[in-house]
């Protein structure tokens, strides 16, 4: 998982400097790959029949990969901008 961008870790007041979008995308890339592969190679015809004839592993795997791609794209187009001076009022 990726700590985001060019912010480094100085300035202790900045809670939430890492980009949660990339973390979510990373998990769903892995989930999507596992499910797609299961759908292609690991799902028996009995299981497909049980799931009303749908190869649900394959379809959800593809869905999750698309979702992860969208989140990566979003993070890339709109990166988190970390202000140099934060104005929280805590001590």
């Amino acid at each position, binding site marked *: *998982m990726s*700590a985001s961008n060019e912010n480094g*870790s100085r300035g*202790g*007041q*900045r*809670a*939430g*400097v*890492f980009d*949660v979008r990339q*973390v*979510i995308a*990373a*998990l*769903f890339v*892995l*989930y999507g790959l*596992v*499910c797609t592969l*299961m*759908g292609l190679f*690991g*799902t*028996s015809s009995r*299981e*497909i029949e*049980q*799931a*009303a*004839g*749908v190869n*649900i*592993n394959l*379809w*959800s*795997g593809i*869905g*999750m990969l698309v*979702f992860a791609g969208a989140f990566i794209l979003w993070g890339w187009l709109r990166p988190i901008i970390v202000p140099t001076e*934060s104005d*929280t*009022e*805590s*001590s």
Partner: protein
Amino acid sequence: MHVLAQEQLRLDAGPVDYLLLALYFAFVLGIGLLARRSVSSSLDFFLSGRSLPAWVTGLAFIAANLGAVEIIGMSANGAQYGMPTMHYFWVGAIPAMLFLGVVMMPFYYGSKVRSVPEFMLRRFGKAAHLVNAISFAVAQLLIAGVNLFLLASIVNVLLGWPLWVSVIIAALIVLSYTGLGGLSAAIYNEVLQFFVIVAALLPLTVVGMIKVGGWSGLVDKISAQYGANELSAWPGNELTGFGSNFLSVLGIVFGLGFVLAFGYWTTNFVEVQRAMASKSMSAAQRTPIIGAFPKMLIPFLVIIPGMIAGASVQEMMALKQTGESNVEYNDALLLLMRDLLPNGILGIALAGLLASFMAGMAANLSSFNTVFTYDIWQAYIVRNRPDSYYLSMGRWVTVGSTVVAIGTAFIASGYSNLMDYLQQLFSLFNAPLFATFILGMFWKRMTPAAGWSGLVFGTAASLSVFLMAETGVLELPGQGASFVGAGAAFVVDIVVSVVVSLATRPKPAAELVGLVYGLTPKEDRTASNTGEDAGWYRRPALLAGIALVIVVVLNIIFG
């Protein structure tokens, strides 16, 4: 204690499913560690340094509530009652969330209080503050127990571990990330959990729908087996327990929609804390409003699978028709997963369930430790220490509350329909709170004495309705008793507050600026609309209007 029928519910999880589960836990703990790096003061730990964007807090707002109660309880209600369960979302959540964002958030965020009880302190003084802080803390520990119990029963079903081992292990996992990263870790995990929960429930719903032959297939099956009552949301007699249609609609609109829902969503610090963590007034206002959009659609992923289970899973059909079976309504979702999902997606479904239960419990813990540390410990027990003291205190409180939640988990296990149990708790604690808040925010004459006495008598009123229903003096099956209890609490609270206010002295107006509507200048109540808050799609009132229109349309379509 409810012993799950092992062979029936044991899911056929394989190595791939465990791999997917393990991946999920690695990410959860990773977020805890990443979030820890950014915690350097108690404000970071308890309120994420007030720095989060609105979409993050908005999704966390929903996910914090998308715990076991929602997933298991609402699918159980869906299987048992059908469409009337939709009221918990469309009537019982959305209007209150919009109200919180548009009307109440300016006071919460604008006054810079760190918790809901702290608002009580500033508005009404110490007595009301203490009543609120203690009742909230107690409620959170009870509800954390419910979430923990459900989390443990899933682990118990899946792995076959004894329930008490599952309870302790589940508690340790939640403790490790909330203790490390505080609210940021809880919130970021809630956002991740939200998506994992959707990834778990969406395929289940889709496959289930195809299995029963689409929407028309589901309608046919349910009306043939159980009658058409379960297919329309109104008037919902089965749900409320009222024989008369008029009383039933009244109970839903006033009891659930107004008192219970507004009490829960607008004064519950678990929810409000998420909005307080956002980075501007505009973002704080948008938090519950953004949350309202996914919230409208969640019933399709929770109630519909429950109904599908009721119409197609053998054991569920037996339970509905004869009332006798070795499964319970709470098992609806698990049974459907067992029947439909192959290995692979099954692992994700399990991760989603565990995610949801952890989200609920983490939310309870993170709000409990804030209230306990700021509003009880710092305010009354150990005052004037450096901030670092309260930060480490917060971590220890998290540990302590986890231990107590393990105890309350065993109390929760005594109730078969957890939704009933939670509604009872909410009506006891939240309904009078809302009455006090709404009166206090709009009526500057309301006095400190009225603040605490209204709360005490309101809570006593809902407690007596609860006891009368338990002992059989009041005959109200379903969830009618909590609707009546909430209504009674609200009315008693308002009456007592008004009477006491007229007899005692109000606070001077100068002390109420920022806390009472009439005494707060308009510019202090209005969010900025420049910079990061610019654009029509970031205007809270407009977004709220759009949400309201959609929810009315949904009620017409499925009414």
